[in-house]
């Protein structure tokens, strides 16, 4: 079933006879998707004020449409959302609601925050079919509990979003990437040096064919200055060069996991304490990409691998993004699981919204 208005969405949830598999564009088929498909097609920009850096948009609006509209005003979504469709083998049209439901945050997360940090408001339909709004369209808002954050990354299990509002940022006119020729296992120390510098690094990762990569963005002269400072800072770690023209392509490749597209194997995502990255990479084996200064490890492992067992011990959590092996989301410690279960029971007492999707 496809719904195209909030009223239709509320009715669909109220009338549901059983489980609903909530989806936007279907480009993030992570975890179990059981039940009758419910596609959120509530589309269109409700409000866009470039001078206030704010955007309100229907949850089913294609991400590409939003990005084009704000790019025309020289602005962007700060968190650099990834397109996981190709790597997950799920062609389709990514929607902003899907981006929020999965809290998809790209390389700029280290500087500008995650999707949830740019999300300033949402309207959603809970499991009772009740319409709820939280947050709003202003950047600073502490009025009542922050259900906006809770909805981001809840994978449609607490409510089905009909509308989302974002804080935007000016798009940087210029960027450059400092590339250091280093193996993945040695990258984290260099990345930490970059992120610990005063040069306002907006990306710090590692990808095959390049090595460790550190990005700066901003006004042209400022970018040139900071890239040169970083180049000098990185010299002790290995051979260094500054990439200007090829910079954007490097970060798109890392963001969308291009080196893994079309390759067999299980895809895992590990969010960890950055300083543990080198040891985890060594224990995992397989192909890896690093983002967030080593705090995010993407690993392509042989089918059936249990990345949690291989990587242990680690501080953080691992998610199986593609593959048959085991549990998709990291099992939660008992006190957290108790709270999580009780929250789900409050938002979705019948247990019909994407049941079991988050384990």
């Amino acid at each position, binding site marked *: 079933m496809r719904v195209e208005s909030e009223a239709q969405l509320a009715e669909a949830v109220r009338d549901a006879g059983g489980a609903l598999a909530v989806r936007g564009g279907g480009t993030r088929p992570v975890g179990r998707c059981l039940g009758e498909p419910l596609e959120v097609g509530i589309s269109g920009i409700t409000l866009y004020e470039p*001078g206030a850096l704010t955007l309100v948009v229907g949850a089913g609006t294609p991400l590409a449409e939003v990005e084009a509209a704000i790019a025309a005003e020289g602005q962007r979504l700060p968190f650099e959302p990834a397109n996981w469709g190709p790597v997950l083998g799920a062609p389709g049209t990514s929607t902003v609601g899907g981006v929020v439901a999965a809290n998809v945050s790209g390389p700029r997360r280290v500087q500008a925050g995650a999707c949830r940090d740019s999300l300033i408001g949402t309207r959603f339909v809970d499991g009772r079919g009740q319409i709820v709004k939280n947050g709003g369209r202003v950047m*600073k808002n502490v009025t009542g509990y922050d259900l906006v*954050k809770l909805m981001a990354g809840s994978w449609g299990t607490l409510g089905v979003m009909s509308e989302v509002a974002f804080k935007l940022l000016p798009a940087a006119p210029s960027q450059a990437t400092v590339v250091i020729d280093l193996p993945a296992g040695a990258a984290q120390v260099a990345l*930490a040096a970059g992120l610990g510098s005063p040069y306002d690094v907006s990306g710090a990762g590692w990808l095959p064919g390049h090595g460790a990569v550190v990005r700066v963005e901003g006004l042209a002269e400022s970018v040139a200055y900071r890239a040169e400072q970083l180049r000098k800072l990185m010299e002790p770690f290995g051979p260094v060069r500054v990439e200007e023209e090829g910079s954007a392509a490097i970060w798109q490749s890392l963001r969308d996991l291009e080196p893994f597209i079309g390759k067999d194997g299980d895809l895992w995502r590990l969010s960890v304490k950055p300083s543990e990255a080198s040891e985890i990479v060594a224990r995992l084996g397989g192909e890896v990409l690093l983002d967030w200064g080593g705090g995010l490890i993407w690993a392509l492992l042989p089918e059936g691998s249990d990345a949690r067992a291989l990587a242990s011990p680690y501080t953080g959590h691992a998610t199986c993004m593609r593959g048959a092996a085991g549990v998709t989301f990291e099992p939660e410690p008992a006190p957290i699981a108790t709270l999580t279960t009780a929250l789900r029971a409050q938002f979705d007492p019948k247990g019909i919204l994407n049941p079991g999707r988050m384990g």
Partner: protein
Amino acid sequence: MEMPKPKEDLLARKPQIIARLREVLPADAVIDDPSETRAYECDALSAYRCQPLGVVLPRSTGEVAAALKACHELGVPVVPRGAGTSLAGGSMPQADSVVLGLARMNAVLETDYTNRFIRVEAGRTNLSVTGAVESDGWFYAPDPSSQLACAISGNIAMNSGGAHCLKYGVTTNNLLGVTLVTMEGEVVEVGGPYLDAGGLDLLGLICGSEGQLGVVTEATLKILPKPEGARPVLIGFNSNEVAGACVADIIKAGILPVAIEFMDRPCIVATEAFCHAGYPDCEALLIVECEGSPAEIDEQIGMIRQIATRHEPVEFREAQSADEAARIWLGRKSAFGAMGQINDYMCLDGTIPVSELPFVLRRIGELSKDYGLDVANVFHAGDGNMHPLILYNANEPGQQEQCEKLGAEILKLCVEAGGCLTGEHGVGIEKRDLMDVQFEPADLEAQMRVKDVFDPKWLLNPAKVFPLGASASRRAS
């Protein structure tokens, strides 16, 4: 401001309640002599005061858990308190409650520059978090005006902001993990030195929940390397509208200063009289601060000068030295003190869409005349977070009530303009009964169901945030 009627049986059982707390806590961690508990009868919303049954001052997470567990068993409400600087009455006691103060828990537990975090006990003051890392070139970004005094626990409870959050975000954007003690006394670790939640984002839910979901005893905070330098400019205009338009143009031009502060004429006049910062005689002024290397700052300020020139400013003053920079900030940082010299004041913090600034300022001016009370405006213009200061005389009968009515009108105006009741101070008791201006009953119900999960008996800071009528049945059970 109405508070729920205290439960008589709790008042009557005070000796037993205090005795039980003394059993589970060290002797000097419990006070109940009214001469000692008086210090806790209010926070920075000092027009409202109430003596609690007692105050506990634990030194560890274990002691916090013991105190909460005991109060839970006895059915005693608990009001958590950081440094007591809430402008919204967030830590104001009720007569049948125990105040749990975190001031003794102020240690730095871990500093980690490789992973860019600091872990502290949550009673530590905001500024002393930066103090612990600044000699190594780092800082903690959220900077509420009260940062010298306010505690991290309170910052987390209210999701505090500050002047520099246009670039760096508010508390929730700089918080990586907490140790939370539930009302039942259970210790829960949420988040940690990694960047996102493994499951539901409980951390995002806890931050800003005004001490109603649990007591945060330890926090893992993101720290940032200090920029190479910073420099403010001051731009004076002869109308609020033009100053507002200049703010929008700066933002649209793709410059992101770390701060854009706005002061209107009443505020300029008052601060000049108070601290002689040398501000121009004009209707409105902006303070815009840029960061980076000297050359980067020059580039940004050059662009800002171009934009401002189009709006024909009466003055464009660029700081040429640290001393001049300090003078530009002096009036802004003294604004609240200056108002306090003139009269009592009530400080609101509704947020509006930046585009509505001229309209809202004009309406506030009209309302100010209608009520016969002066209002000065000083606020974070880049993000639309207003700070109207209503001046009144508390000793004159009826003026406080008039002031509260005017405050409510201004906050309703903020909501009507597309904004919200509070941008960084929190709801507390102050804005509790205005919540239904912004929210439908179903919106509030969804929030209250969250409290049902963390605190089923509604014992933690129960008379805050939600209109008393809306929360009555839950608090009674």
